[in-house]
């Protein structure tokens, strides 16, 4: 028997380490026979900590959810049936197609043996011993794999360009972009934490294909667990000889090192990432020259995202056609999404490209929290856009999503319900990009700030006639006049919310109303006849703005009210409403 504790960052945050410690202590007292392992996140982040029990034949015999330390003994005693995963939650996984996440949550990321046992490094061996570099690129081309970092650029094309680039006798570099910075996105982190070897293997294959002997993983410093697991994985891989000199006797050598980023979102942009790698301020550079021509240290460099690399071993091992069997005509394979926001089952989902959006949100995500009405989903993070509920049938592939004004991006999917103010949502994302602009291009640096100021004005009830047009004007010009993807996409949340929810902007500006009853300056709290006079609201009001006798309807003094919402949060009868 084997017990596996899910220890991705989500699990650790939910107390998985304590659970593991409790289990270890109990097992220590029992003597041998039961192995205790850890794994990455299986995907159901909302159910963490998760403890899996495997039978001796390797099959999963039980999966316990919300398995906190106090239930460790119950789990060992078989007295924790109440924690067994429900059919519905289990379906969260079974509805998915897992290529990137094939090992996540199942193997111990800190043991290369488990990765190898799961077929790991077979692809690298195949590539090095049976395929030419051109053949590898052909296979990638046949798979239709496109960059999973956001832009969706065909991977084979970049590899081919880097392969054909003249290094002038110098080195070529294979860089993994693990600077996952979108708010609400954690696909890459899960892969790095749960299956780091998949990335290493993908990089080594890529290095072979383009003729690079050195790989660098640029990972954000905010992912300490990922960094530790990558370090462990690299050391183990070197020990096993799957990294280093003369791998599988092929004569090909490849090494990988880690560079921790300093937390600038813009360093996810490839030219800024290169600048940062070189020790410079993380600022984008002009393209051309493209990194494939002049990248890291002005040498040919290929940069792919974590998820892209994690797909590569599958493509090589199973063949491009197997990968291309999933997805649509132009968007092949699967895509990992980080489902977050007002969704019942938030977590990582991997689905074939082309699945309708509603199948992800309702089918896998279980629909909207508290059964509120689905309003929109923000795709692609701050660079993406919102897709309204009316377009829920949109297939999730690069072209269809782009048509809506959003982007597939790196896979962030933030679900919004009817209580979300779309103007405020746009404001939130613009505030993010405004802060994360590197400050180089004038349009991005000042333009996003001015757009934000206009949005802040609108949500504060001080919007003016002409503000929407000014936002649109700035948005178009910022996209036109910015050097890198950050500026070119920063206005997207504003443009898409104006496109689909223009009425909300108009309500804020002209009627001084927040349609979603969210913007503080535009709402008032009121107590309805549903009030039972329990006094909880008055007790919790920090400014004593609520008066009323016990068992009588209470009243809010609008002059004193600071609209903190504590009354609404504390009312057990739904008697506090926002108008």
């Amino acid at each position, binding site marked *: 028997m084997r017990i596996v504790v899910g220890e991705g960052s989500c699990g650790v945050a939910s107390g998985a380490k304590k659970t593991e410690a409790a289990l270890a202590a109990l097992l220590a007292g029992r003597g041998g026979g039961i192995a205790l392992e850890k794994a990455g996140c299986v995907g159901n982040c909302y159910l963490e900590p998760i403890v899996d029990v495997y039978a001796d034949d390797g099959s999963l015999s039980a999966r316990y959810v919300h398995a906190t330390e106090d239930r460790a003994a119950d789990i060992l005693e078989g007295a924790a049936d109440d924690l067994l995963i429900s059919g519905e939650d289990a379906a969260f996984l079974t509805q998915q197609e897992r290529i990137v996440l094939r090992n996540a949550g199942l193997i111990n990321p800190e043991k290369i043996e488990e990765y190898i046992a799961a077929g790991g490094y077979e692809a690298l061996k195949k590539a090095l011993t049976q395929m030419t570099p051109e053949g590898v690129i052909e296979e990638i081309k046949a798979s239709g794999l496109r960059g999973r970092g956001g832009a969706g650029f065909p991977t084979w094309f970049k590899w081919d360009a880097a392969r054909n680039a003249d290094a002038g006798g110098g080195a070529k570099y294979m860089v993994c972009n693990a600077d996952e910075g979108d708010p609400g996105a954690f696909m890459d982190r899960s892969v790095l934490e749960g299956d780091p070897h998949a990335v290493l293997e993908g990089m080594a294959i890529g290095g072979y294909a383009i003729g690079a002997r050195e790989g660098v993983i640029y990972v954000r410093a905010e992912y300490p667990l990922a960094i530790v697991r990558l370090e462990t994985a690299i050391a183990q891989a070197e020990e096993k000889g799957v990294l280093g000199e003369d791998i599988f006797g092929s004569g090909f050598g490849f090494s990988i090192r880690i560079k921790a980023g300093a937390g600038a979102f813009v360093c996810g942009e490839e030219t800024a990432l290169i600048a940062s790698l070189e020790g410079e301020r993380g600022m984008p550079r002009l393209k051309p020259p493209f990194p494939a021509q002049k990248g890291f240290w002005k040498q040919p460099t290929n940069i792919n995202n974590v998820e892209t690399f994690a797909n590569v071993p599958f493509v090589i091992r199973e063949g491009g056609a197997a990968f291309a069997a999933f997805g649509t005509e132009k968007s092949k394979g699967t895509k990992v999404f980080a489902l977050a926001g007002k969704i019942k089952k938030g977590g990582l989902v991997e689905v074939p490209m082309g699945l309708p959006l509603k199948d992800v949100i309702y089918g896998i995500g279980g629909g909207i929290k508290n059964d509120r009405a689905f309003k929109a989903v923000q795709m692609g993070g701050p660079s993406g856009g919102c897709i309204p509920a009316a377009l829920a049938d949109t297939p999730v592939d690069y072209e269809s999503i782009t048509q809506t004004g959003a982007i597939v991006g790196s896979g962030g999917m933030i679900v919004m319900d009817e209580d979300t103010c779309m103007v405020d949502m746009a404001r939130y994302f613009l505030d993010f990009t405004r802060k994360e602009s590197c400050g180089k291009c*004038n349009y991005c640096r*000042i333009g996003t*700030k001015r757009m934000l100021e206009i949005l802040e004005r609108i949500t504060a009830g001080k919007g003016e006639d002409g503000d929407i047009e000014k936002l649109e004007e700035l948005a178009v010009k910022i996209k*036109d*006049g910015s*050097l890198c993807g950050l500026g070119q996409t920063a206005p997207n949340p504003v443009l898409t919310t104006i496109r689909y929810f223009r009425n909300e902007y108009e309500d804020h500006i002209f009627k001084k109303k927040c349609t979603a009853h969210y913007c503080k300056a535009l709402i008032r709290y009121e107590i309805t006849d549903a009030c039972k006079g329990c006094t909880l609201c008055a007790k919790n009001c920090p400014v004593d703005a609520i008066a009323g006798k016990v068992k009588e309807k209470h009243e809010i003094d609008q002059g004193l009210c600071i609209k903190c919402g504590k009354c609404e949060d504390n009312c057990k009868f739904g008697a506090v409403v926002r108008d």
Partner: protein
Amino acid sequence: MGAITVTIDGKPCAGRAGQTLLEVARENGVFIPTLCYDERTEIYGSCGICVVEVEGNPKLVKACATVAADGNVVHTDTERVTESRKTMLELLLSNHTGDCRPPCVQACPAHTDCQGYVGLMAMGKAQEALELIKDKIPLPASIGRVCPHPCEDECRRGLVEEPVAIAYIKRFCGDFDLGGGGWLPGCAPDSGKSVGVVGAGPYGLSVAYFLRRMGHAVTVYEAMPHPGGMLRYGIPQYRLPKDIVDTEAGIIERMGVEIRYDTKVGADISFEEVRKAHDAVCLGIGAWVSTGSGAGGEDLPGVLGGIDFLRKVVRGEDTGIGGSVAIIGGGNTAMDACRTAVRLGAKKVYNVYRRTKNEMPADAIEIEEAEEEGVIFKNLTNPIEYTAGPDGRVEKALLQVMELGEPDASGRRSPVPVEGKTETLDVDTVILAIGQAVDPAGLGAEGLELTRKKGIAYDPATFRTSLDGVFCGGDCGNDKISIAVEAIADAKHSSGVIDAYLRGADAPYRQPYIVERTDVTERTFEDRERQCRPKMDVLDPAVRRGNFDEVVAGWTLDDARQEGSRCLECGCGDFFECRLYQYANQYDVKPSRFLGEYSAPPAPDRLNPTDDGHPFIVREEGKCILCGLCVRVCEEVAGVAALGLVGRGFDTEVRPEMERPLAESGCVACGQCVSACPTGALQERLPLAKSVPLETEKREDVCGFCGAGCRVVIEEYAGMFVKAGPARGADGKLGPICALGKFGLTENPLLDGAKAKAKALGAVSFEEAFAAIGEEVKRLKI
């Protein structure tokens, strides 16, 4: 390299393979603006002002970063390009603080370079100051005496103790010039065009002067026997002696302007004839009709018009005033009439004005001096009716007593009658100095469009009247009866329009866009030492009452120089070389659309920039547009990297290394950053007593400090050394320069510092170098 041809704005342009669109455009004389581009550094592409459209490319492309391809069809002037550049500039300017020009220059209707000439005066350069004034004011001795100096009202020295006496300095320069016989400005070669000017007042004389300087033949038709218009006939001798006006008008005549006196257009010569004789005509007939307030009895004998009265005095005619005179009105004309009546021997002189002295439009000094001379102020009274005595002449003035009510649209508190309360003055003469009107007789019949009040109607941007080739300015147009310098401003601005018209072009006047600080208060100057104006001698009231001698004596050179030194140097030192300013006006920006927070808000307690303690270089963060040129030039050209970018997004800024003051950085004071900076964010301390912005002339020279023989550009103003900088080589790139060449080519007292630094750059042993590095590292607080 292969030759390529690129079509830019329809023009075939030859280039070489590998060149950028910008390089091809520049080599072919096509203008593409840039702010972050410098040939010496790697292409950066941040400013985005060089965007152009290339056919076949749906995006705007950056000309600096786009390699030209043979056959490219490029457009640099489409609406999309212009709009993108304009909005970009508006965004930059919405985050740009400081004062492009000082408040004095902005307050002057003619935008006279007050800071410039006050600064030159502080250096004792009276002639240079005079010439700078005469760029905008052709009659400085006269205007220096009579101008109510709106410049001084805005002068920030007033926040310390009292404004710089800009007008007195102007007068000094004017008098200095007249004392030297009068400087004759150079005129452009004859254009072959001729302009007729109607009226030799401030507008007419000035427009004649400016047009003459531009090379046009000018004839002025003047109805009166002498020049000056209202300056002569409306302002009394004791304020502006007639010989001053004559001499200044004489200089204009000596420049080649013909003035035909005693020639009234419409009487002595027809307007049509004047139009036929010239390629263009300017109307500057002034507003010579006195208007009343509508009180009863204004037509009685003994009731006179204010300017009629003053004119009669000038012309030596009998004014017919008696011993008890009431002057109605609160402006300078009213004060002139009061004080003239005193000098003519009137026993009792009243001034009747419906508000208090605080609201009087007249200059405070005029009111004060009138009071000293015995004028009795009847404030808060308003004439209702003048009644006649038995001889039919005015005998009494019935006045309504007033009080101040709520402020009106202009901000002045409106007078309201105190019900039933009146006062009566015994008078034998009433002088109405309330308003003026235009008498267009002789011109109106010709189809010239007039305003409702019979002023001459013209377009304020083009100065064109309804008649082709007929322009107008000064008091006679658009019911804009104002001060002399306003008429001179019209002359300056219309002369450009008329010049363009004569060349067949159209160049309407546009008020330039400038950035200005609006947050300056007393607090800004708390650290300044109090320093009052030098004393100005004036005639004793007891003496001056009895004659028309000039009251104000004027200053000596020392006085003027000392006064000039009080200037606070508000205007940006880089005004004349600022590309942001130039582009802003080229693209007609409206940055107020995007007003918001500043990334480097102006400090309320300082006018001047970030103090880095650097002997030569001055940084102004609020003016930085983050083009990165200084950072890149310092690293890539000077090889120093004393400057770097700090922070992110909107709050990004340029800081000296390790965020220490620039003086404590590795800066070698080569000044390349100053030369590269497109705005005033990096300036240099000038080796001048007053570091004022001056439009310099440049010449190339060779620096002689060492044997390297670097070519340098020397900038001079009127032969005076102002600054030096690197020269452009044959490859179009700015060449090398060091601290000595940049800041040492002058008798700069700060030079010692540079010499010491240069000396410290000699050869040392490894141990010495290592020890020095150790010391430097210890100094860093990291």
